[in-house]
């Protein structure tokens, strides 16, 4: 997945990033809206004013390979979980036994109990909405999953379990205000500052630098790298 010079409103300004297949990338930003904006642009919910986006080598038409879960579940309260999954499967072109199998697996993964699956979601709590939103995202077995502050109604252990979606070739991007709570989900972190990618690092690099996977730890690593880069650039700049 590749973004080049993506600009959208005040939150993304010539943002460029490249994410390889299978990466689980935690995206944090100052201010936070930039991380959300990046995921919304990738999901097609916001149109970039300029820039190039490629997912799986395609510059468009990737909707069936990408799933987005935002802070709002985006589901009608009067629908039953099974209706939501049938609709999601139908929109992805899945029908019959294939759709039913996909829906059952997704409901099972999201821990939607059988007695909840056939009654309107308005009778359940916020956690049912969020579980069903997750199940609807997984029904098409997407290659790329974009998680924008998802499942905040669930406790941290359950949330981490549900979002640890298996698949070595599955790429996951997580926009988070609370990186420490998403530490178990990420293999890499990206920091956006002023709408641009200021740092892309693996979580191992944070550990090696004795920094916590928190906003302050990520910012500290970015500052250290920036200082190091300016030290290296100093003599060259002076010579030129």
């Amino acid at each position: 997945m590749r973004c080049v010079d993506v600009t959208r409103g005040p939150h993304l300004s010539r943002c460029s990033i490249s994410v390889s297949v299978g990466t689980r990338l935690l995206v944090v930003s100052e201010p936070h809206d930039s991380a959300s904006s990046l995921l919304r642009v990738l999901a097609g919910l916001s149109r970039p004013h300029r820039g190039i986006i490629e997912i799986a080598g395609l510059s468009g038409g990737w909707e069936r390979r990408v799933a987005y879960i935002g802070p709002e579940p985006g589901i009608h309260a009067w629908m039953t979980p099974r209706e939501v999954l049938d609709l999601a499967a139908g929109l992805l072109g899945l029908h019959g036994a294939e759709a039913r199998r996909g829906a059952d697996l997704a409901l099972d993964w999201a821990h939607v109990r059988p007695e909840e699956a056939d009654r309107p979601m308005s009778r359940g709590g916020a956690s049912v909405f969020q579980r069903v939103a997750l199940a609807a995202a997984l029904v098409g077995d997407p290659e790329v999953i974009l998680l924008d502050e998802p499942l905040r109604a669930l406790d941290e252990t359950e949330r981490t379990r549900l979002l640890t979606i298996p698949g070595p070739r599955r790429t996951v991007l997580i926009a988070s205000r609370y990186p420490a709570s998403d530490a178990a989900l990420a293999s890499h972190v990206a920091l956006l500052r002023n709408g641009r990618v200021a740092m892309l690092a693996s979580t191992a690099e944070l550990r090696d630098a004795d920094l916590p996977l928190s906003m302050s730890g990520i910012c500290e690593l970015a500052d250290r790298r920036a200082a190091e880069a300016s030290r290296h650039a100093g003599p060259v700049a002076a010579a030129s």
Partner: protein
Amino acid sequence: MVTKLAVREMWISFRLLAVLVSFVGVGVTVALLPAPLPTMMPRLAAGLGLATVVVAAITAWSIAEERRSGRAGWLVARSVSRGTVLGGWFGAMAGPAVIGLACAGALGWLAASSVSLRLAPVAYVAPLTAVFATALGAVAMGLLAGMLLPAQAGVSVVVSVGLALGLAAWAAPEAMALLPGGAFVALGSLTEAVQGAGGAWRASGIALVAAGALLGLARLAVGRADL
């Protein structure tokens, strides 16, 4: 599919009922309060004008709420085009409005024919057709406002435009000949003596052009909106 979802959402949230009741209520009120044509027709026109503003406001509220709740985004993230979402909501709002308006029109005709036998059907149908076209324009205006603004702001704008047109119709009815609200003036001025349909057909044309232009703008707005 989007229209079906939208109609069901409107039904569950009583908004569909509000649209139908606002139109049918006008017809029922006019039918239950018999009066000579010069009194009845302005009442019918004013009532249908208010109902049209209600439909525009409900449309603006609904589409803004679809954006805020992430439901429009949920569909777009699953390969449903933005134009299909817009078209689906247009169908879901325009359909009930047209049905309600048809019922109100039928009740209005029954009431009018009970007090006058000299009212020509064509003279009544022409301004009613213009009101249909204006209602479509109102739905398009609601969609545009709801796509550009949050729910409350969208409703405020739509109601303000509706009230401004209503005031203009009351203060300077002759000036309304070239504005989308002219349909209500044509319907309100219908009497046994004044049954010319030319003004009404012109109002239909103006309203349809306005509806088309507003829908085009709404299509542009949905293409750029954050869903």
